[in-house]
């Protein structure tokens, strides 16, 4: 849109501008990175972090110093793996062992990879990968083990996928396959991060006992991306929407993009959104288990962005035509709301869930399912943050007042008497002043008796001065 375009847009959307200003002015990072003591390799790592991810680098860099570097390294390692997998110029014979052995490269000093095609956008990261390895080896052994384990699982998952794509049809058929794909791409990241949080004692250890919670965190984000990027993926000849879902609405996947199947495409889109919404409760549950502000922010921002994106995409035909995105103002508002506490975040989730609910239409075959899912999310939020409790209700029935109410009432009564007192004093002062003025006028010879007479005879105004007549000269 360009700077001028942005300026015009914001001039007509003051609330958006307000959100941006609020975020820029009032957001205090819980931790600020102290760049002074950074080693050369650390500086390179942060530089790559900025280059490879704009959205994540801000939140990562505000993380608690304990986890700042481990998560940066974790991110870069996975990004490196991804860059190998994405590169279609690497033949399978080379790619498969690279992916499967990637975890071992993490401990090989000086390892790097120059086999990417030049147009691969994160090629440089792998070319200078030795810096990431240096930092990896400087981490605590416990963190190293976690990152290595996840790299192992993800590398093998990707390799399996590549082999399958080369030998047979790799398109996603069932919902189960879809979940599995999302798990490899995003769910594993969630697992690694959760283990890091718990290891650093920033997360409730109970999170480890309920792996479905962190799985939902990853799946929710990934599914939202897949729903939003349908057009872009289609143009790149990638299909992530499971056949089990789209085949209910259209015969061929391509039909989703044809104007004559618009209704079917929208219904398919809403079924995909429904599938993603089923993770929301578990995501909120997971967030309740985080104990440190920067870690909470790190997890909450992507989640609120995801639900806002889902709301934007829900039954929005534009997603089949182009790439849709939430506006910068909305993003800033969401960031403000995601960096406070779980209660504020839940209210945001409730607001966006209701917005989805409002767009739901009975023409949709999944109308009832969506309605019930939205209702369940709202009920879940109500269970974590009840808007009223039984104690208050009991008091109300018995007519008693709570402590706060009593105090409030007392304060109100005090305020009231203060106001009366002030008014009374003012009245008295006015009376005195008026009395003094009347007395002064009387002393100076004012004839109140004449004035009174005139008023009684109805002459409220002083007599008009005689008009001057100009006699002719």
């Amino acid at each position, binding site marked *: 849109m360009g700077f001028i375009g942005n300026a015009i847009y914001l001039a007509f959307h003051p609330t958006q501008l307000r959100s941006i200003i609020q975020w820029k002015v009032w957001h205090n990072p819980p931790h600020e990175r102290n760049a002074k003591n950074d080693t050369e390799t650390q500086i390179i790592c942060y530089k790559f972090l900025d280059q490879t991810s704009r959205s994540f680098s801000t939140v990562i860099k505000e993380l608690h110093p304990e986890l700042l570097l481990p998560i940066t390294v974790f991110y870069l390692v996975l990004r490196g793996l991804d860059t190998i997998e994405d590169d279609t110029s690497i033949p399978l014979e080379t790619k498969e062992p690279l992916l499967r052995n990637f975890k071992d490269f993490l401990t090989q000093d000086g390892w790097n990879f120059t086999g990417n095609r030049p147009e691969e956008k994160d090629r440089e990261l792998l070319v200078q990968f030795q810096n990431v390895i240096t930092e990896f080896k400087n981490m605590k052994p416990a963190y190293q083990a976690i990152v290595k384990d996840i790299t192992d699982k993800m590398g093998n998952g990707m390799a399996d996928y590549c082999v399958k794509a080369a030998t047979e049809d790799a398109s996603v058929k069932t919902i189960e396959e879809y979940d599995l794909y999302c798990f490899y791409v995003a769910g594993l990241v969630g697992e690694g991060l959760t283990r890091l949080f718990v290891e650093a004692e920033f997360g409730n250890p109970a999170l480890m006992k309920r792996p479905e919670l962190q799985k939902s965190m990853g799946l929710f984000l990934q599914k939202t991306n897949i729903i939003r990027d349908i057009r872009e993926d289609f143009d790149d000849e990638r299909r992530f929407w499971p056949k089990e879902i789209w085949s209910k609405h259209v015969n061929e996947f391509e039909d989703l993009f044809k104007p004559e199947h618009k209704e079917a495409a929208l219904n398919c889109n809403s079924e995909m959104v429904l599938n993603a919404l089923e993770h929301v409760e578990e995501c909120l549950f997971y967030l309740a288990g985080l104990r440190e502000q920067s870690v909470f922010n790190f997890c909450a921002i992507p989640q609120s962005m995801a639900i806002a994106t889902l709301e934007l995409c829900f039954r929005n035909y534009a997603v089949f035509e182009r790439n849709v995105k939430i506006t910068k103002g909305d993003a800033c508002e969401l960031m403000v709301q995601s960096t406070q506490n779980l209660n504020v975040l839940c209210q945001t989730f409730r607001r966006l869930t209701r917005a989805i609910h409002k767009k739901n239409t009975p023409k949709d075959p999944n109308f009832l399912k969506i309605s019930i899912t939205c209702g369940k999310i709202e*009920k879940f939020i109500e269970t974590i943050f009840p808007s009223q409790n039984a104690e208050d209700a009991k008091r109300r029935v018995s007519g008693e007042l709570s402590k706060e109410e009593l105090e409030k009432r007392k304060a109100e009564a005090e305020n009231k008497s203060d106001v009366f007192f002030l008014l009374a004093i003012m009245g008295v002062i006015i009376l005195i002043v008026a009395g003094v003025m009347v007395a002064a006028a009387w002393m100076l010879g004012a004839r109140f008796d004449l004035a009174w007479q005139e008023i009684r005879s109805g002459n409220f105004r002083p007599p008009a001065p005689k008009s001057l007549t100009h006699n002719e000269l």
Partner: protein
Amino acid sequence: MSDKTILGSKKVLVSGGTGFVGSATVRALADKHPSCAITIIDRSPPRPQHVVPEKTEFMKVDITSPSEVSKALQMIRPDAVIHTAGIVPALADRFGRRVEREVWKINVQGTGNMLDAAAKSGVEAFIYTSTCCVTTDDMRLPYPNIDEEWPTSQTSLIYGESKVAAAEALVLKASSSHMATCSLRPSVLFGPGDYQLVPSIHACIAKYETPFIIGDGLNLWDVTHVSNIADAHVLAVENLVTSRTAAGEAFFIQNNEPITFRDFCLVIWAHFGHVPPFEVHIPEGLAYVAGLVCEMATWVTGRTTTLSRGSVRDACAVRYASGDKANAILGYEARIGIEEGMRLSCEVRSHSKRIYTHLPLICLMSMAGVSG
């Protein structure tokens, strides 16, 4: 717990057993415990719309008569009593006091009679069918996710419900080591044999009432499929004749799928191929004033109108309960979800040629808070 032999040799009496909830409970009981001996007592004999299994006994008893009730219980000598008989004033009477005496007689005295007779004839377990509305007292307040700790009110404006609360209090107080009692509080009921809710929502199509929405239409309600409340009754009997952890307790029973009342209607209409062509939002305040005008008209002319301040507030109310306690103690879970239940209800409806009473949507909304 749900061992089929628990109730194998037991005798269970179901009052109101030919009614909507009663007959469903009898069917569920007979399904799960085929060798259990079931006797129904009711004012009216079994009707075709509420099918009961063939081998159940029927006895015509008026529960408002203490002598009839005690004679019946002495004769049957049941081990457990499921008391579903009761009355909820219909629709327009809900906010008036016209049927005050009758409601009192059936709900409070009738329940008292049942309790006395049951205690005297050695009944071990007594289950009462209450309603979730015993808690929702002050209509100006929302009731999101309420639990059983919330107070019940016996001085509610909604007369019928307040009497149910009084009856429930009697039942829970009567729980002792000889006879364990508990109370189940379902929300709005629907399902096979429902000749009020789904039909009257359906009727709105013909009357062009479907586009109107009072309030924001986002207030959540609970609904209960009748076979789920039937399941809950069976679970409660099983509990009270074994571990008795539910003795003296009340439980909210619902589908645990809160839904907006608007959506509930929309789904039913969609089943019959109708989608409102447009939507008109009537602000709550405006509807409330209209309700007030109608009430004044009622006062002047003496004829009951369907719209009232109470029914408007009902339509905009938030009322859903937590199912945690019923799940933890009774092991209750809704077996039939709203979607399946709704499909079944609507299929039955589209095959039937019956002509239903046509009730305006507004009055239906007020009725929806009442369980049959």
